[in-house]
């Protein structure tokens, strides 16, 4: 009896240990621009060691959650270079087929093209908030040759 009990406990501990993933962490947070929540901003976390990047998009409350791939969320553990942009090219809406207008870039270059944002993701849950200011040069993409 004691033997089978300890056996079961060992199995249970083994199962619990097997559940954790060490090299990924979940990341959520809020993005604000001049104190107001920023909607539809696209965040990209690129690990500085060249591993696969994660992306997230803010909702109307400025909240985002990072997605790693089609079937996994979160981001690689370690230091990341972060780029944030609000620009989007015109593209036909998948449901109606009508072209959606291009969205302008609201954020200065220092957050996207020349980003110096560096954030560290740890294992487990991370909350990483961004308080951005609109001061600085803005790079506005042009879509003259946009004909994908």
């Amino acid at each position, binding site marked *: *009896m*004691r033997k*089978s*009990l300890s056996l*079961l*406990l060992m*199995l*249970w501990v083994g*199962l*619990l240990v097997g*559940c954790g993933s060490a090299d990924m962490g979940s990341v959520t947070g809020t993005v604000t621009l001049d104190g107001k929540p920023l909607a539809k901003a*696209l965040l*990209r976390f*690129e690990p500085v060691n*060249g*591993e*696969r*990047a994660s*992306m*997230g*998009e803010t909702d109307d409350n400025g909240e985002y959650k990072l*997605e*790693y*791939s*089609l*079937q996994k*969320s979160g981001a690689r553990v370690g230091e990341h270079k972060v*780029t944030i*942009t609000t*620009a*989007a*090219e*015109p*593209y*036909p*809406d*998948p*449901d109606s*087929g009508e*072209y959606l207008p*291009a*969205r302008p*870039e609201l954020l200065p*270059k220092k957050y*996207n*093209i020349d*980003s110096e944002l560096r954030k560290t993701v740890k294992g487990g849950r991370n909350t990483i908030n961004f308080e951005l200011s609109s001061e600085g040069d803005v*790079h506005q*993409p*042009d*879509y003259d*040759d*946009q*004909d*994908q």
Partner: protein
Amino acid sequence: MTAGRPVLALQKWVTRSYVQFCTSWSPAFLVSVSFFFLQEDLTVSKSRQSTRGFTLVELLVVIAIIGILVGLLLPAVQAAREAARRMQCSNNLKQLGLAALNYEAAHKRFPMGHAHRGHLDPAGGRGGTAFFWSALILPFIEASNVYNEFDFRFPVFNNNNPTTWGNRNNEVCKTLLPWARCPSDIAPPTRRWGGAVHKAEIATTSYMANGGSFYNSLSTNERTRADYANGMSFRQSGIRIADDTDGTSNTIMYSERTWRVTRDSNLYGMINQARGYAQGRTSHGHNQGIYEMNPAPIGTWGSLQTAASSLHTGGCNFAFVDGSVHFISENIHHTYRGTKAQGGFNGVRSDPFDVANEGAGYGTYQRLWSRNDGWTISEEF
């Protein structure tokens, strides 16, 4: 142990625990089982009765073992089914790869990616019948009957006024072909496009041609620049096998795209009457190497529509120009160069292949998409 209410409650509790286990909450179930052992140890040892039949402990142990076995078996069955679907998918890609090679043998060119000339405005660079490569290879993949039904003088379909021209093509476009769908994909059989009144209905597909490794590599208007049109198929393309200077075993020909990421994929062709006919919709039949494989469906659709994606676990199937099919992990080395809308993050557009750094910033994945980058592929893929 006395019969009656405690046993009834126990039975209920055991059933509940079992259900919880089956919904993959096994640790909690095992805790409760081990807890029970403890209780049994204390109570049974005091008043041991010898009756025939199973004791509660034996029953629980059997249930626990069955639960563990089921818990192990169910994912295995799912994985086996997915493996079979992946095999079917790679077979489809093999057929497509061979069809492209047979097309090349007959025409000395790989099939045109997107027909941009002919019909309406041939001089102005706009217009075109907008047939994809997937319509042109039909005779080489045992679909001559569908090919012969198409009227190639007219656009692939007309979603504004089907009664004037192209109405026959509108009907042919609904034809479903078994090799055009990956069994794991969730795309509907056909896709509706067009205005509120007349909607054209086109069969969907899971397979896309290699449209190059850069953001604008599908267009023809800047072909002189090295960072454009380096794929095997693009708008009005006519790539010879000699143009694939990287070697046919190092260049992707066809790849997958799942409906979950993009919600657009067309067999036969894609046209857009409002924005210059063939122009602007080449991406509905081509993938590009600019984005990582299997992206999560976030951001604008335009920013990830051309990424190779599938619902297979951890990667995608690829047909190469030499006809071989490989399953490549989604964690393959990839360097992101950014779209124009995203400001070209990391993008050194004047030096697209990163020649100055000996190609360090040009990932293995992009090297597979590009037919003429000149870099070696050191990583096993």
